[in-house]
């Protein structure tokens, strides 16, 4: 038996990277997220569709049910097909899933943009077709809402924290941000922290338990995403304490924004799913069609934090209806929302 690396024979990609550019109609756009059954990721795919339409193409939507292996399976199946002019905008399930996706795309010569999750030592700049990695600064957002929370409770009192899926970078960074915020606000005390796995239902039960455990000492609830914050809101309502405890979250999903508008929630941080779904495809499309040269992309844009906004009652109205703006996706504008290079 002849053992060979999969690069030539099986990866087989005769493509693309830099060689000749594709016709716009030849480009194949793939957007992959966990599932279509939560608002954030649904808006991501919708954003992808908006972009695809704007260039007269159709986005292939893939979902993998938050199942790492299934994600890999789909990626390798996609890469086994026609990879000439393939553009993928991928949300890796966890940090560990990024490396194999990158490797596969590299070998097949498919253009790839990843978002949210990647190990720190894996850098797009070291790869030809991995164009960019986009994420939001979790430490910053965790800290922003932490600060907003401590302001809301007057800089003094106990809070509880609802963590996300423990083994994700997002959960860790955001919690690190909270810790930074706590260090700045010595009056605020973290009474307890529990994992509620980014889930509204789990957050509900955990919050109820923590509310009985700590009683009236709980002045605020810090949640690592809006779904959990919304679960916490329900728990407060059921415990008859709505309005008496400040709640913050991250993501600015529509329900959370309206809760902020109504004053039920103190703050959230916008991460714009619609934009994320379009921008990854846009970057890939621009490179594939030769409108953007990989070499021309600034080093700081190969892995960057996207701009995010703290959403409070004052500015919530602006974020109430997330809508994709095709102008954001024009090749000249694709890096407009860079807030800084990934650190």
């Amino acid at each position, binding site marked *: *038996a002849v053992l060979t690396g999969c690069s030539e024979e099986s990866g087989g990609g005769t493509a693309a990277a830099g060689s000749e550019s594709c016709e716009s109609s030849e480009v194949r756009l793939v957007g992959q997220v966990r599932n279509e059954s939560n608002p954030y990721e649904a808006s991501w795919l919708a954003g992808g569709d908006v972009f695809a339409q704007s260039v007269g193409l159709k986005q292939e939507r893939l979902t993998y049910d938050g199942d790492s292996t299934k994600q890999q399976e*789909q990626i*390798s*199946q996609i890469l086994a097909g026609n990879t000439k002019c393939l553009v993928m905008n991928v949300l890796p399930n966890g940090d560990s899933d990024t490396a194999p996706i990158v490797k596969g795309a590299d070998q097949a010569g498919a253009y790839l943009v990843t978002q949210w999750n990647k190990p720190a*030592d894996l850098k797009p700049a070291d790869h030809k077709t991995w164009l960019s990695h986009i994420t939001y600064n979790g430490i910053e957002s965790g800290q922003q809402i932490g600060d907003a929370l401590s302001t809301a409770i007057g800089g003094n009192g106990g809070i509880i924290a609802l963590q996300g899926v423990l083994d994700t970078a997002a959960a860790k960074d955001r919690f690190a941000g909270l810790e930074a915020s706590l260090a700045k606000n010595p009056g605020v005390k973290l009474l307890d922290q529990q994992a509620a796995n980014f889930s509204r239902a789990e957050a509900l039960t955990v919050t109820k338990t923590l509310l009985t455990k700590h009683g009236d000492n709980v002045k605020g609830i810090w949640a690592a995403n809006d779904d959990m914050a919304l679960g916490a809101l329900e728990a407060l309502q059921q415990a008859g304490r709505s309005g008496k405890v400040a709640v913050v979250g991250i993501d600015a999903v529509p329900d959370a924004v309206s809760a902020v508008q109504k004053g039920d929630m103190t703050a959230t941080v916008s991460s714009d799913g619609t934009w994320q779904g379009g921008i990854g495809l846009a970057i890939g499309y621009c490179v594939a069609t030769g409108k953007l040269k990989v070499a021309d992309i600034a080093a700081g844009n190969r892995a960057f934090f996207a701009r995010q906004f703290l959403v409070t009652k004052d500015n919530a109205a602006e974020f109430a209806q997330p809508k994709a703006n095709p102008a954001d996706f024009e090749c000249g504008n694709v890096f407009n929302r860079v807030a800084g290079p990934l650190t």
Partner: protein
Amino acid sequence: MSTPAATRPATVSLRAGRFTGFMPLIALVTLMAALTAVDPDFLTQRSLTAALRTAAPLIVLAAGATLVVLCGGIDLSIAALASLSTVLLALWLPDLGGPATPAVILIAAAIGAVQGAAHVLLRIPSFIVTLGGMSILSAIALVVSGAGTVRVVDDSTVSWLDLYIGGFLPTSAAVAILLVALIALVLKVTPLQSWVSATGYTESAARLAGTPVDLVKIGVFCLSGACAGFAAVMLVSRQFSGGPTMADNLLLPAVAAIVVGGTAITGGHGSVWRSLAGALVVTLLRVGLPIVGVPSAYEQILYGAIIVVAVALTLDGSKVSTIK
């Protein structure tokens, strides 16, 4: 109290019996044909290669767990054990290098054996032991990994699994098929086949015939654990990292693979070959449906419907007295 069997035994002729042995294969071919009909691009050598590579860890997981099912039990801990094994392997590779692989497989086998022993000695149903085992192993994996991904920088000792034989046959798939063949062969040429089926069909009779029922059971759990460890090696070689939940989602597909292959979940009747075919069917469903463009929601509906129909086709009703 014994009861007469009221179910009139299905009167299948020998030829029909042999035919049902091929049902899993027929299901597989039918599914391929259907997918190709929807999307002609699906039936390319590269696409099949990718599917095989994808199926490898599932084949290994299912093969090990098949033996547990043949003995009449079930192992719900395989996926969690595989996740834990990916973490251990990723942690040990830098220090141990090559020997990390056998070490992880051994540890996984030992964990499987411990669960088997708990099942046999404490007389707790395997469903409960391994359900508990699942959460315990997940917790350990979470703690050991520090709740994060463990990157493998130098994967030279496991990367051979991610190569291709002759450019098109993924090594991992070849190894998985070899493993299935090996298990099948060992079963066939040793008394193990008798012991396993006797235990699965009629445990009390097997015990009263002096069959080492307890040892056999512990043995199959041990093997199931080892297979989980080996599947973990494949995953690490493919993912370049280990993670505390990496393989968790493979549990239901693995069980589905076993059942879709036509192995009776009540024990006794079935084989690892059937699970191999079952694993391929399940893989094709998992990756094939979205790739040929079935929208996410319909994909789940189709998946659910197809596995139920597949089981209806492959399970040989005449071999299973009551279907619960």
